[in-house]
C-alpha cells in the first residue's frame, strides 16, 4: 500500500469509529459505550439470594399435557452464567444492560436517524415469547407435542436494603422479598413459531 492509500484508509477508519460514537452504534466490533455508564440514583439496594438447590433444579415448567418438571442449564447445554441471566432476569422481562444503555437519553439526532418517536425505545424485545422459543426449540418440542412447554416459572428471594442504612454500616435492617414470575404460552404466537426469532 502506498502512503496515500494508507492515509485514506486511516481517515475512513477514524470516520467509522467516531461515527459509531456520534450515532450511538453499539454493534461489535464498534462501540460508543465502552464501560459501565448507567447510573440511576436509588434509595434501596437489592441483591439476589442464591438458592443453589433451587437454581440447580432450574426453571419450573408445565407441559401441554399438564405434567410438570424442571429445565436446568445442563438440559439447555448453556454456560452457567448465561443460564443465571435467563433464570433471574430475562424471564422477569429484564433486558441486558446494553439495551438499557441503548435506550437512555438517545437524543434528538439519534431518534431522528432511527425514525423513533420521543418515548419510543430503541431496543424492545418480547422476552416472554423468546423464553418459550429457546426452551421448547432446544428440547425439540413443537407446539403440537404433548410435552410442549406452556408455562415457565421462576422464583427467588431478594434482600432489600436501604442505601442510607448500609452507608451507616448497618447490615441488619434488611427486608426479604420474594420475586416470582409465571409466564404462559399464548396460541396467538403460533405464526411467530414458524418464523422463529430471526
Amino acid at each position, binding site marked *: 500500500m502506498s502512503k496515500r492509500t494508507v492515509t485514506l484508509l486511516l481517515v475512513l477508519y477514524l470516520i467509522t*469509529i467516531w461515527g459509531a460514537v456520534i450515532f450511538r452504534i453499539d454493534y461489535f466490533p464498534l462501540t*460508543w*459505550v465502552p464501560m459501565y455508564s448507567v447510573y440511576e440514583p436509588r434509595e434501596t439496594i437489592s441483591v439476589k439470594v442464591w438458592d443453589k438447590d433451587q437454581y440447580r433444579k432450574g426453571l419450573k415448567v408445565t407441559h401441554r399435557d399438564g405434567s410438570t418438571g424442571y429445565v436446568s442449564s445442563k438440559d439447555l447445554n*448453556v*454456560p452457567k452464567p448465561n443460564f443465571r441471566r435467563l433464570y433471574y432476569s430475562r424471564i422477569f422481562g429484564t433486558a*441486558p444492560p446494553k439495551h438499557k444503555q441503548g435506550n437512555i437519553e438517545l437524543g434528538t439526532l439519534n431518534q431522528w436517524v432511527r425514525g423513533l418517536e420521543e418515548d419510543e425505545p430503541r431496543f424492545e424485545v418480547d422476552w416472554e415469547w*423468546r423464553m418459550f422459543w429457546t426452551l421448547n426449540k432446544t428440547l425439540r418440542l413443537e407446539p403440537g407435542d404433548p410435552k410442549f412447554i406452556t408455562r415457565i416459572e421462576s422464583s427467588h428471594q431478594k*434482600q432489600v436494603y436501604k442505601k442510607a442504612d448500609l452507608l451507616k454500616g448497618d447490615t441488619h435492617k434488611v427486608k426479604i422479598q420474594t420475586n416470582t414470575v409465571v409466564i404462559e404460552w399464548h396460541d396467538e404466537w403460533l405464526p411467530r413459531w414458524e418464523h422463529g426469532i430471526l
Partner: protein
Amino acid sequence: MAFCNLISRGWNQFFFTGFSGESLGLLRMYIGCGLLFFHTYQFATVLTLNPIGTRNYFLDPIWYFHLLGIQYHIPALSFIVYALLMSATVWMIMGKWTRASILVIILCIFYLKGVRDSFSGDVHHRYIIPMQMLFLFLLSRCGEVHSRDSRHGAYPPLQEWEASWPIKMMQLYVALFYFWSVIAKVRISGWEWFSGEGRIQEVLIKRSVRWGMTSEGELVKNSLSFELAQRPDLIQIFSHLVLAFELGFPLILFIQSVKLRAFFLSGVIIFHISSFVLMDVNFLLIPFVYLIFFDLVPIHQWLRIHAWRFFKRPRSMAR
C-alpha cells in the same frame, strides 16, 4: 494553505514515524502470546459445555448471527473453532501464513463471541480493543519481520512509515476507548456518575452485600468494598482520578519519556486490578494491550540476554 500544511505535517509526524519493522514484528509476537491467555479466559464458559450435548436455540442472537441466520449453537463446533483459534494464534506468533492466520483469528473470535453472547443476550465488550488491533495487524506488513514467512520469501525491508501507522493507530484507538467512556457516562448519567455518592459507591455496596451475611451480620466477602463505600469523600477522590485518567488518556500519545508512560500505564493497571477486586469489573487481562505503547526492540533484547538464561541448563549440570 498554511493550516493544511500544518495538519499534513502533524498527521505524517504522528502516524508515520516512531517505529521500525522489527518493532512491528515483535509486537505481533507479544500480542499474540497475550491473546493465547485472553482467548482461553474469555471463552472458558463455552468450553464447559457438553460437546455432544443438545443444540441450544439462542435467546437473542448477536447482530451478525441475526444477519447470517444462525439461530442455534452446535456445541462440538465451538470446540473445533476454539482449537482453530488457538492454532491460528500460534501461527500468528510464529509469523507463518501471518495474514491468513489473523483472518482466521478474527473469524473465530466473531463466532465464539457470538455464541457466548447470544445465549442470553448480554453483549460483552472485552474483545473490542483486541479486535481493532487484529484488524490493523491484518492490514499491515507485520508478518514480514520476525516471522517464518520472511525466512522463505525475500520481502523488501519495511520502512519507518509502514511499521509506524498500524501501531500509532492502535495507540490512538486505545486512548480513544478510555476517552469515549467519559463521553458515554456523561451522555447517559451526567456528571453525577462521578460524585462520591454516585455509581462507584453503588457498585461497591452491591458487590459487597451480594454474597450475603454470616449469622453475626458480617459480610461473607468483599468487606473492603463495603468499608470503602462508607467513605464518599474517598470515593470522590477516586472518581476524580478515574475521570482525570480517562479524559487524559490521549495525552499518552504525546509523552516521549518511556518511564513516564510506564508510570501512567501502571496507574491504569492498578485501576483495572482494583476495580476487579473491589467491584468485580472484569477488564483484568486487558492491560496486555498496553504493549503497543512501547518499542519492544530493547525489551526483547533485554529478555534475550537476561531472561532466556533462566531456561538454559547450566553446562556443568548438563554434563
